[in-house]
């Protein structure tokens, strides 16, 4: 599996294709302190007003803050608003 990923990574570099497309890597866009746009997620693990945990292709993402609302949820995209305190990548 790792070997395959490595090959894909090399190919993506060689062909100058963005890695998030080839390797299914998550892409996180943070606007200010209260808007997060996340692409290539693998589902929500936990959602509450103060904490959101989102599954990724490798590990998961943990957001902490206040008044979280999922403004939109699509198969591989989501848009979250709320007061963000921390963003952590965990395995």
């Amino acid at each position, binding site marked *: 599996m790792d070997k395959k990923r490595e090959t894909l990574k090399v190919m993506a570099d060689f062909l100058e294709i963005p890695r998030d497309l080839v390797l299914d890597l998550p892409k996180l866009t943070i606007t200010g302190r209260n808007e997060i746009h996340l692409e290539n997620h693998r*589902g929500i693990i936990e959602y509450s007003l103060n904490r959101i945990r989102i599954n990724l292709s490798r590990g998961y993402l943990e957001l902490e803050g206040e008044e979280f*609302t999922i403004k939109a949820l699509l198969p591989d995209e989501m848009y979250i608003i709320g007061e963000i305190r921390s963003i952590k990548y965990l395995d």
Partner: protein
Amino acid sequence: MGGNFFDKVGGTIKVTLRGRNGERVMNMASTRGVFIWDIKKKGDDLDMKVRASGFPALSHIAEEHGFELEVQDKRGLPFVRSIIRRRMVFIGGGLLFIAAMYLLSSFVWTVEVSGNKTVAREKIIEAAARHGVYPGAPKWAFSRSGVEKELLKDVEDISYVQLDLKGVKARIKVVEKIAPLKDIDGPSNIVAKKDGLVDSILVLDGQARVKRGDMVAKGDILISGLVIPQPSPYVDPEEQGELEPSMVKARGEVRAKVWYQGYGECSLKNERVRPGRGRQNKFYLLTPGGSLSLNIRHSTSFPYYDESARCRFIVTPWGRFGFKRVVLSERLKEVKIYSEEEAWAKAKAMAWRELNSKLGSDSRLVNTKIKMVSSPSEPLIRVRVIGECSENIAVAQPINTEAP
């Protein structure tokens, strides 16, 4: 992401998902392609929005995993029905109005005829009515081209018909036939057009029956088409044999003195009514029981006025219903005093006008005489102008050769 145009059209539903670990339902929904948005935790429950089209799938997922789904709010076009139900009478009234408009506009209300000069308007209207175009006729009951064809057949003196339907108005435009001038082919006489004193006679063909200085009456033969040969005094009558009368088409010009007279008068004190600026409208509702006045002010504001009324009505089995508008146009009365000279000039001018209107294009005025005919006791000046004209009074008249 919600609240856009397509969500409004398709309809959106706000639901509450009851149960622990609502994330499972959210993940399932998003992987199955059900778009959900505005997800917010409320205690143990989750509030979210879903499109009306995705709602059955979402409720199925929730049921499968032992969650309870409660609908909070429905928005969008499919849910406007409840509003419609509440406003049934209003919407029904609107629909009824549209239906009535449609129904009423599918009839012919007025028929207009234009382009006719010699053909009577009534004749065209009557012919059109025979083929289905009359006030109150349903528009679907006739075809325009059909009526046009039938009208052309029915009314002989028109060469072209166009039927236009403008709303509830039927406009019939006609072009009349121009009749060719009738040329006389066979033998003909020349007769007098009017009474007169023959001044000169020029015979081109035929035989003169009058000579200069003769008085002729209207219809007298001036130049005969029946030529009776005269025996020549220089040839022996036996050599000439039997001379047969022959028929010709008489041609020639006969000028005669014709008298015309024009008369004019003018009173010294002249009362004249001229149109004023004032207008007043009066409206009446016509019902079979009588007419009902719709006017706030019943009095008339002018001492003298002209009335013209316009009626619009429909004929129903219960009688005539309609609307009448009466327009009162103000008239002003003026009194003018003329001196005798002025009155004389006016009367003379009037007499001259009358005389000139009687003259034909061919007549030449030779002599005129102006006479005052009023008696001194009258407050009126009367003038007579007598004109002596020289004009061609010849007119051809065919000879009926088919003797009875």
